């Protein structure tokens, strides 16, 4: 996780610099940082790395979504006569969500898929971020005496 998205290096990945910036802006609207600072915002996650693991067909659709969003925002900029500030860009993105629900759904899905596997998020949720194996987990065996009412029943199978 980084504090300033502009400082996140853009390495080799499926999205161009511009596309990644647009995706991050959308991700920041989808999952903003919470106001208590307990949960990071999705814009702070290095999504490019996670995206390289997505299937090619899904990435193609994602690129199309991001380009559509960028085109929509550019249209808003043109209408307003200049570059949008952060609040205006957020409004434009929110407006896109309402007018392009299917494209927005993929952006939400992608954001969640990257966000909820990031170590910073898992730590913030109180989880151990390491893979389940070989760590394992403790699960309480449970109180089998809860079955006493069932044990009293006669067999009822045919």
């Amino acid at each position, binding site marked *: 996780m980084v504090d300033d998205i502009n400082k996140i290096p853009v390495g080799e990945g499926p999205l161009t610099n511009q596309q990644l910036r647009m995706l991050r802006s959308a991700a920041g609207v989808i999952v903003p940082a919470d106001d208590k600072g307990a*949960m990071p915002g999705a814009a702070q996650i290095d999504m490019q790395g996670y995206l390289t693991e997505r299937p090619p067909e899904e990435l193609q659709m994602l690129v199309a979504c991001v380009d559509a969003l960028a085109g929509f925002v550019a249209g808003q900029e043109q209408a307003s006569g200049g570059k949008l500030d952060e609040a205006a860009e957020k409004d434009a993105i929110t407006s896109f969500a309402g007018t392009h629900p299917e494209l927005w759904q993929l952006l939400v899905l992608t954001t969640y898929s990257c966000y909820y596997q990031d170590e910073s998020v898992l730590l913030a949720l109180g989880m151990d971020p390491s893979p389940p194996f070989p760590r394992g987990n403790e699960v309480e065996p449970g109180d089998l005496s809860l079955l006493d009412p*069932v044990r009293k029943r006669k067999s009822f*199978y045919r």
Partner: protein
Amino acid sequence: MSKDVVDVLIIGAGASGAAMAWSLADTRMKILCLEQGDWMNPASYPSTNRNWETRQFSDYSISPNVRGLDTDYPINEQDSPISVANFNAVGGGTVLYAAHFPRFHPGDFRVRSLDGVADDWPLTYAQLEPFYAENDLMMGVAGLAGDPAGPPKKPPLPPVPLGRVGEKIGKGFNKLGWHWWPSDSAIATLPYQGRDKCLNLGPCISGCAQGAKASTDVTYWPAALRAGVELRTRCRVREITLNKQGMADGVIYYDADGVEHKQRAEVVVLASNGIGTPRLLLNSRSSLFPDGLANRSGLVGKNLMFHPYALIQGLFDEPLDGYMGPSGCCILSQEFYETDPAREFVRGYTMEIVRGMGPLSTALSGLVSGTLPWGDDHHRVYSEMFNRSAGMVAICEDLPEQHNTVTLDPNLTDSNGIPAPKVTYRLSENSQKMLDHAVARGSEVLKAAGAREITSNAPMAGAGWHLMGTARMGLDPDNSVVNEWGRSHDVRNLFIVDGSIFVTSAGVNPTSTIQALALYIADTMKKNLANLFD
């Protein structure tokens, strides 16, 4: 052409093929199994990596159409509300199953006699019981004796942990006075026969990196190989061939490089599941069998049964176990299993409690159900969902109907040019009423357990993981494909041992019964070796 003739050729190295191979190995016959998939490497299962949740939706999806691996074949499911779940590998579907391992009830073999629908099986629970027990030992089944909902049995291992989820929902069942019991699970809850015990990893349905879940690559296959069975992987069978006498004499298959081979055999055993088996038979046409091999009854590919599933989930106010623990195995209820004439449907279902979800699955579940907003309220609502959800699936007995079929698609093929299967299925009125009842009762239990915001989904579209009925068993050759010990009525050295031979589906997971049947058929073959083709 391969010059060697094997005594027994088994097609498919999954649940039934493995059990068959192991059992027949003590005859010292030359046994060969051909499997189109490969050996799995547990070190590469998703639970060994941080992206374990996302991989359930890509290369470890239960749907072959989503996975698209080179060991998969595509399936045309456009005419089915339920999608097929399968897996091609040594271990087959057991690599990805949840390892839920209940047995049929005795009455499940007598559906016609008891309830006036479907048919009776040509064998009884009593005949299968020794093989259920043998299979429980081979696979290592964890459970608890004394369940009043089923016949007596002695699971070799203690039950899987109830966890907070099991206790919470168990108390809900108690409030209503309904049956519940720890689920029979093919999971090593203690070290067992060289396998270490379950670590409660969570993503069981993406393969068990610990080896505690009983897939047949870690149970039957090591023993079968030690006993001399040969297993060839990446061998995709295209068709079964016949000699001039109308007996099966082998198969034609493609190896990993796409090179065609002929393998000759004295006996052929199909163990390719309720989709793969009819597909192979239908693709094995000849002048003797223009409608597909062993299909004089016309029933190959017909009577396809899934188990229509309902998913009912709720949110609780206190933290539960999340994704931890054997994901699909916890407790179950058979309160509504047996037919009750007061209800609007015949037969019944099992409610199987499922544990919670990981962080990503929680978010995606909320996205799909529309209950998790994006934006400013995301974190607040998410915190009320994460590690606080639990629920159940209801497995509904599916009745055999001839219009539910597996046929060969006229256009779609696999990578070797073999016609893909096409599934045509519609949900019956009986199934729909059963699902409605299950959703209502499931909601009732979750409320009794303290859940709020209950959601449901029925039938679950992706839940076609039980594939049954498409080469059914029976005494009458006009009404069945194989006889009471799995031998084709039409081709006496051809046997079928997978879920295709099911006459009815019961309201429970089929793997325990599939394997018990495979062991029973193998045992019967061994007892009749001298006159196997009479």
